[in-house]
């Protein structure tokens, strides 16, 4: 860790963060939707509160892929100003996937913690 600055200068920590985020973001979206229906901005804002910031350019391709995989459903609502919003909800298959992912995450994070704290 003494060489953290050096690592930073090569961008490796950025890559690490991106890779880590990429792996868990799908689980986090499912987790947010597990608490109820949300439209896209609400989902990203909830994630942002937890320190996970993702751009629209990343979010929308991902959520659409999840929808095609049957993990989430959505309904369209047009608000008074004419803006169309999609409200997403988790599907039964998504719930099953979320449970599996959470279980794996628990196990994985425990293992990581064990190694790091050793």
């Amino acid at each position, binding site marked *: 860790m003494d060489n953290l600055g050096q690592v930073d200068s090569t961008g490796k920590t950025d890559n690490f963060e991106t890779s880590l985020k990429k792996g868990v973001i799908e689980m986090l979206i499912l987790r947010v939707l597990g608490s109820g229906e949300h439209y896209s901005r609400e989902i990203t804002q909830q994630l942002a509160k937890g320190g996970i910031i993702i751009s*629209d350019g990343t979010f929308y391709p991902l959520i659409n892929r999840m929808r095609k995989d049957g993990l989430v459903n959505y309904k369209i609502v047009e608000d008074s100003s004419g803006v169309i919003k999609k409200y997403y909800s988790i599907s039964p298959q998504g719930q099953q996937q979320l449970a599996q992912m959470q279980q794996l995450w628990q196990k994985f994070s425990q293992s990581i913690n064990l190694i790091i704290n050793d």
Partner: protein
Amino acid sequence: MIAINLYKKKFELEDQKSREILQGLAIKIDQVRDKETRQDLKSSLLADLMEAKKLDHEQLQKIASNIGPIPEPKRIFSKILSLIALGFNSLIALAVLPLAIVLLSLWASEPELRNLSFLLTALGAVVLPGFMLLWSIVLFSKQRYGAVTKLFLAAFLPLFMMAIIKLIIPNFENEQLNIFLAVTTLTGLAYIAIQLIGDAGHGGTRQLYIAVKALINGLATSISGYVLAIWSVGAATVLASILVELAKNLNNLSINTNIYYMPDITASFIGLVFLLIFAIFFLLIPVYAFLVYAYDTYKSLRYIHKWGYGLHNYALLAAGIALMPLLVIIFTVTQFNPDLAKYKELERAYTEGDFTALEKVIGDFSEADKHDLARLHVLPRIYMLDSRKQRASIRLEDKVGEISQLGLRLLAPFLIYKGNLSDEYLAAKVYSIAFDADINAEQADYINWVNSNSSFGGLFDFGRRTGGEATALDIKAQKVVLEEFFTTVEKQEGGLLTTLDFKFLSNSNLEEEAVMVFSLPEDSVVTDLKLGQYLQNQGVVAPRAAAQRVYQASINRRTDPALLEQIGPRTFRLRVYPIFPRGSGNPDWQRVQIKFESDDVAGLVKIEQVRNLAIGNTRVKLDLQHKEQQLAASSLFEYNQIARPAYKQDLQVYKQTGEQREYTLLIDNSFSASEFSEESKAKAVEFARKLAAEGYEVAVYSYSYKVDKLGDSRDLVALQAKISELEFRGPSASDKLVKFINSNDLMDQQIILFRDDSEHDLNQLSFSKLLSLDIDQLGSASLHVYDFGEQFNSLPQDLLLLSLANGGQVFNGGIEVQSTTQPVEVFKAGSKLQKLAQLNAKLRSLQANNRSALAIEIFKSGKQEGILAPFTAYIALETDWQKVMLDNLTDDFTNNNSQQPGSTDEINIEQISFPESADYKMVLMLGLICSILLLAARRQQGSQKKLLQGRV
């Protein structure tokens, strides 16, 4: 709905910078491939905009950062294609660099190549491949372009490479090819310019870019649609013809056919398959181009509409598209005009040499139509623009130049006559038949000018032809004229002996070289070459490289050489130097005689290419029992397309009957001053005309040196000494005359020998020696000697003609020599062909380890037999130093001290002749233009993406 809301929102923004950011964002989202994601991103963007309290450019930057980068899917296929393109481009760039150096140095060193088209060609060879290489590197690294674009790129490059390869083939001065490459270069440069405008797009420049893009898209859609229409008809014709020919000739695996759009194809089976592939490829290009351009036009419209780029851009787009209906109308009228049948009949009659039909069909035209007809063959389909009544009676002689209106010139590439390279000649021929008058030089210039200027929209002028296929109307443009080309065929035991007699005249102020490539019938063997104003320099067989070196050395030292080489299976190249300029004090003409033997009448000499040479007058002499057998051709086209087929037919008749009688006038003008010689010659020619009028075939020979000036008395002694060394001089003059007659194959002819004025002592001396002529040596020739000095005008013509008709023994005022009946010595043609076949068989068996020895053996055999064999060339030389040099080099070769003379590689290559039709080249050219425009249009889209993404 979302798009419209975004559009409205844009106009709520106060500052230009904010509007540009928003516009960039929206376009960036437009590029997202997944439709649902695209919609979501737009909704999100709109929501952000609605929710924002104040929309300034800082706020918009924040919104933009919310959207962030949009990941692109991985495209393995694109990557592979891009890699292929990169590979092609690298190869091209590597291969072209040395070529570019050669081209540029040629441009610098050869005055005749210092023209715009050649320079553009050379520049194109450097700029385009370099640019393509850079572009492909960008493509490969950025991966921002579609698979189809890359496929097209990969396909375009071999096409370009093919053009480059064509360029390095000997006739690179071919005008069509030069124009084709020059257009490629210009289009490429325009493409780069458009792209730069697009990439620089800010503010007013961006407006210009949008305007240019809209106009180009509109025009490109129109033109590609029109090209697609006419191309489909043409390509379908070609495809059908090729398939029919393939079906008919599958068993033989080779064809010799004549396809409407591609005349005079002589191709192997494989060559036809290539043509088939090309035809399909060229058909696909406009289909694809049209689809892409139509899509781009749609995109352009949407872009202008969505982003409010103003009415003027709509107008430009509409103007571009408006061209389409006009072109379609022209095309439709062209195809369905009821007069077309008449014109097609005209074309057929001309193409087939059916002059009876030609005169008949022209007779159906009114006087006004005849004038139109003449104009028709310059830009033949213009007539279809108007009804017959509305057509103005435009006189060719003063109106051709008026085809300078930009509109017609822009249409010209699609309206131009679908014949071949001799369009101008065709125009001249039709004109002469229609009006019973020759087209004059001024009109010819007009036609040339119109054709050169109308071919490419009048954008630039390439000047006159400088080489390649010279036509009748180009005589003035050529530096050397092949004034006479006599072909005489004699029947020999075992085959035919053909004599080709070329006479070259200069049009230049410099000493010029004439180069001619021709092909001989299969199973021919060249047995003789002679050079000189009086054919006094006998050619010899020499090792090819030695002959080439001596030839070059001779040119450097301005000494006469003629070199005949075999450059293909049946193709030969003749080079002759020098042709002296007129008025230089030297004879301004040069003669070359080639003899070859063949065993059949399968074909005759075809002139494939000429360089620096115009065809003046060509005559084919044969079988004098038929007075009509003398054919004249005044252009390369006429010779190849009309005279040759007719000649072949006559030759077949001749082979059956074997009859041939000729009268030869031998003019002794050796001793006279030039003025008197010319007078003598003129008299002889006049007499020959009279004989010809009686139905006799007459050839006029000048059988000795011409001395231009006797000089004054102080030089007389020296001059007499010089003259005494000439042929036909001194005590052995009569023997030399016999030798001349025999060596010129005049044995079986009636010979009338004229002599000069008897006032000259030397002349009298020589003349008197004829009395002692050994008649037996003359073979079967009948020799009539006539002194036509003062008495010529009072010749009893009738009596003389009568005597000739009866075998000829009458002589007026001179000496009569009775011929003998000794049989003509028969030249064993068959044996030489057999020898050549043996040599070729040896050549085919050449192995790497004994190549040198066999090459020497083949040379020795060829020399012994006096035949042009592989590894050898025929060379005729003038002076001793040339002969000594040749002997030394030959000794080096036969002693195996030198490198192998003249590679035979090019002899062994199977020759596939691709069509030389202007149409075919036009198809090739249009294909390339379409592909470049297509690439440009696609690239503009790419630039736009990159630009906008870069700005966000």
